[in-house]
């Protein structure tokens, strides 16, 4: 499974995906969400979707001093919480700002590409792609 952003121009900014991600982490509210939606400088200009885009060659594991982050098979990264010291290098290096932070344990929170949020996107902005699937998405 891989989460992809099909077209952020379709986004109405309802943030249902953010709440879904928190529920997936057995939480209510927004503290534990690994996806965020904010306006591109005012709602009239549309929205930015901030979420891990599963880079083919992700920079975050390269700056992890403890080897806690490794590239996942289909893109994206897996975090080994036990190895992580919470240095925050990964967060600084992510151009997408897609590494969120759990301030309770002082460690990163990163989208696991489970696809749960996509079930709650009412307008087809994001989708969960199965391994064999290919989907046309906006560049």
């Amino acid at each position, binding site marked *: 499974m891989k989460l992809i952003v099909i077209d952020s121009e379709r986004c109405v900014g*309802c943030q249902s995906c953010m*709440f879904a991600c928190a529920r997936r982490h*057995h*939480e*209510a509210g*927004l503290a534990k969400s690994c996806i965020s939606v904010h306006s591109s*400088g*005012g709602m*009239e200009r549309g929205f930015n979707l901030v979420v891990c885009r599963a880079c083919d060659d992700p920079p975050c594991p390269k700056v992890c001093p403890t080897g806690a982050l490794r590239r996942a098979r289909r893109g994206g990264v897996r975090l080994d919480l036990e190895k992580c010291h919470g240095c925050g290098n990964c967060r600084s290096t992510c151009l997408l700002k897609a590494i969120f932070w759990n301030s309770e344990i002082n460690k990163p929170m990163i989208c696991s590409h489970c696809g749960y949020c996509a079930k709650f996107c*009412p307008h087809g902005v994001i989708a969960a792609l199965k391994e064999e699937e290919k989907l046309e998405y906006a560049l």
Partner: protein
Amino acid sequence: MLCDESLSTVLHIDLSKKSFRTEKRPELFEKYLGGAGVAIQLLHENCPKDCDPLGPENPIILAVGPLTALFPLGSKTVAMFKSPHTGNLGESHCGGRSAVALRMAGYGGIVIEGVSETPIYVAVHGNKVYFRDASSIWGLGGIVTGQILREAEAGTGFRTIMRIGPAGEKLVSYACVTTETYRHFGRLGLGAVFGSKKLKSVVISGQQSLQVTDQKLYREIYEEIYENAVTSPLMKKYHDLGTAENILPLNELGGLPTRNLQEARLAQAADISGEYFAEHYLGRRLACSHCPVGCIHIAALREPDPVKPYFYKTSMISYDYEPMYALGSMLGGSDAKGLMRLMDRVEALGLDAMSTGVILAWATEAQERGNISEKETLGLALGWGNYHAYLKAVRFIVEQPNHFYRALAQGVDRASSLYGGRDFALAMGGNEMPGYHTGPASHLGVLIGARHSHLDNAGYSVDQKILAKNLVSPQELAEALLMEEHWRQILSSLVVCFFARDIYKKDVVARALQLSGFSLDPEELIGIGKEIHREKYRFKEREGFSLGQLRIPKRILETPTLVEGWDENYLIKVMESVKEIMSS
């Protein structure tokens, strides 16, 4: 027992002392849920009897509820204050990101007291409160103020930016507070209360966790409500054409107030309809936080520069039924572009679009009949549909260059008491009418309504579904209106959007509330609704409200509706019945 303690936290902000404190009020939220139920209690506690609505004693209360940030469409914040427009209870609801941001910042309510000597804005980021100088943005329009504060403050995506425009600063009694560019605490003058406190804006952000009693059950009930919200035909009209869908059906029924309600049909209604706007101008749709419906419709108006060749400006303008009625049909307007320009200007000035339209409509008729002349209007000929003149008039209303515009800035009741034309001054309880002339129930809903606004009122559907077939007795109508009114107190205490009222039925509400630690059956909920309603009336009566003293504008009796056979006497009898039921 509240499951999430943060709901019961009330933040008190004192603008005079530039200080703040929090207090825990679990007893208040356990008894009255949140939103309107809690806000009216906080108003009783903090608003002294007979206080000046524009004085430092008038508090601004903001409240959310147990469903906020937990369930879809739990997207509204309730504001309560003493209204500078009516001198009585002010209640206004707003969506945008306001409700989720307030709850995620860790509060169930905020009370803002006092007055600042110089322009100020307040930023609440979680448990931190900052008082910041606003002298450099005082005087700016609501849209530009938003642009500036977006850059200045943290919390993008997790915040609300409530602000006023020049109308609030100049104390126009029906100035609004705008959030997220397009949503409003529209009615009853919260903007003027902000202005009187020299409060330009309140920014709130946060992203905390919330506790629920049972995670598994939470997910189950959430999915059921979400599914209903996105698939139910009941929500269709809100996401497809938006509330603007109402223009054509109401016009067909003869319920669309036109030319100051001299008529109830506009011949060219198709040119300002939701269908026309969608086809020619709809540029984007937006949603409030945690609402998958996305009813906010934004028109893209592309206009060439009048002088420079190949130079265009594109404005993104929010449209909804009520501003289209008030600034469109009510003004006899059928030019969509003119209507959009006026809606855009009203937005930037920070005026309530509904009151503004009704006031301009009265002024147009008053000029036609000779109550006023171009001497009063400062040279403007306010003919029906003359948007050129209306665009200038709204500026004058805010700037108030003479006695006449100072009167217009205080509403149609005030203006008509000075210049005549009471019979066609369309305000009830001091507030300008909403866009439904369907029959007696819609007008009565406004007259008896607990918050003098349009959304608390199920009257227009009672007119269409019941009274159009059979005019029931005054007693029966009073009971029907009150029953709906009581339930709406619950919806506005949870707080869910009234557009979702068919999704949040009594049993669904009872089950959703379990997750926050409430165990209430539907009957108990209705009991709480009744009590909240009574508490609002207690405030209203304290401030001089009396059902027997309400002015009924003659015009609503003169223009026929689809309901036949009612007159002033019928309206009075219904109000007497309401009084009787409430005192028993």
